């Protein structure tokens, strides 16, 4: 496992795919009141593509991220991240897959308050057990790429919402993931800042050849995306 190629042993046919959902269904809730959050969803995201998922509230966008990010298992269907079948993995192995292969960018950054910007990135490397010069990327260089070099030693409470989102993106990329999952990155930002952040996501997606799925309510920023899919009632409609 070196560089940004997503090689997984024995899965040669799918190595060119960052994320693959094949007929995925997710039912939530218990007993009589079950909700079909994902309804026979099939989706393929190749490396280097920024895919936007839009749709009304309750459409199943967060559920899609949870299943794609190996946070939960689908009720039916197959989820492959960098060629690895997620449904075959137990919780510990899914955590391992997350720290090595998947990067998350959360709404409003969700940085750890005790850590400086550069330590947010170092923490991700530490969790993944990787060191700079192997699979991981150099934290300060990456912070420079997202325009945060001058605030590398600030803690989250000293950063603006847009700056936190930039650090969050750098943190998600530092472990050289194959799949980047982004949850409403512009929810807390003004127009100008929203465009900057999504533009940055597009740039990094292309530069690092990572498959990126971004959930958003913000139709303004779709122009920066390579592809847009719509969701409604758990189904992909476009």
């Amino acid at each position, binding site marked *: 496992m070196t560089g940004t190629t997503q090689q997984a042993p024995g899965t040669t046919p799918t190595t060119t795919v960052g994320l693959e959902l094949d007929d995925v269904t997710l039912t939530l809730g218990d007993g009589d009141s079950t909700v079909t959050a994902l309804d026979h969803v099939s989706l393929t995201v190749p490396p280097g593509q920024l895919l936007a998922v839009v749709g009304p509230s309750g459409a199943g966008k967060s559920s899609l991220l949870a299943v794609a990010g190996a946070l939960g298992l689908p009720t039916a269907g197959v989820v492959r991240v960098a060629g690895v079948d997620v449904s075959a993995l137990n919780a510990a192995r899914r955590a391992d897959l*997350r720290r090595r292969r998947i990067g998350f960018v*959360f709404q*409003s950054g*969700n940085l750890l308050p*005790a850590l400086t910007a550069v330590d947010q990135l170092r*923490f991700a490397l530490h*969790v993944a057990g990787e060191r700079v010069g192997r699979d991981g990327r150099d934290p300060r260089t990456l912070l420079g790429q997202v325009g945060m070099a001058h605030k590398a030693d600030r803690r989250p409470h000293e950063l603006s919402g847009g700056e936190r989102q930039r650090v969050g993106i750098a943190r998600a990329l530092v472990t050289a993931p194959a799949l980047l999952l982004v949850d409403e990155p512009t929810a807390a930002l003004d127009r100008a800042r929203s465009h900057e952040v999504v533009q940055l996501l597009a740039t990094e997606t292309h530069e690092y050849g990572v498959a990126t799925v971004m959930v958003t309510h913000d139709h303004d920023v779709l122009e920066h995306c390579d592809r847009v899919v719509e969701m409604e009632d758990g189904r992909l409609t476009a």
Partner: protein
Amino acid sequence: MFLAWRELWFARSRFGLMGAVVGLVAVLVVMLSGLSSGLVNDGVSGLKKLPVTAFAFDDGTAVDSAFSRSTVDRDQLAAWSAQDGVAEAALFGNQLVNAEGANGEAVDLALFGVEPDSFLAPAPDAVADGEGLGDATGIVVSDTVTELGLGVGDTVTIERLGTELTIVGVLDGQHTFGHVDVAYVPLETWQEIHSGALPGTEVRPEAYDEATAVALSVADGAELDTAAGDSDAATMTVPLDESFDGSPGYAAETLTLNLIQLFLYAISALVVGAFFTVWTIQRKHEIAVARAMGASTGYLVRDALGQAAVVLVVSTVVGMAVGVGFGALMTSTPMPFALEAGPLAVAAALLVGLGLLGAAASVGRIAHVDPLTALGGQR
């Protein structure tokens, strides 16, 4: 420990506050431990320094008053001397008396009546000043008697009886019993005093057969068959360390102090447990983020326990250092106070160990944080 160290620094005032509580508990524990050791020394150091394995008291005496109530005789001594495994057996007399020095000053003494040629008599190398037992009215006393201004050659008079005893030797170190200085006295003289006979009057003849207990010492590697000995000699045998309960006030004092220390340990563990419970709940969202990033439960639990260990060890060490500093001032006062490395090490281990247990109870919550909650906007 990547996150743990940085959190310690980031939330240093909160951790400092909790550390201060643990540190203050550590100070108190040191003080109590010193007081405890001091009281034990005051209560039973005279017994501890006897080369005795066990005491055989007269059958039917209660342990807590054995040294004042029990009376044994030479037949019981003979029965014990014949037992297997007994290397030495000798009569031991014990009596607390009030006496006064040459200038009328009060001197309380615990008289240890021993035969001068028995294994109980102070060894020559234990006598720091003067000589050992021999002279009928010569006594060998604890060096704590010198604090009263008495020394070799001085005479003390036992109140009520008027018996005069002369200090012929001063022992090395503290020998006390029931907070009173020990004076070794020849058994025959002890028997006369114990019988209550005034000097010059007739002593009832049986008195010369009697003592408080048969002191036993066991041959190397031998096992004492107390049941057989007790039934042959009509005695009740108590190992030396259990006989401490027969020292006046000993059981009550040690129980009280141990109880206070127990409460302190419990308080400290609860404070640490409560702190880390609140701390973990506060960090719930961050833990969810870390788990979504792929941090395993083991990674996060190790981090949290390491953090707790750092706080506990640092505050315990600082608290104990302060406590030992205070203690050094205390040892120069008449307070019974003695700092001993053993009990302090045990106390430190208990504080850290129980604190970790308290922290462990709370970090269990880490395992139950759902990484899914990191998604979405709940914050």
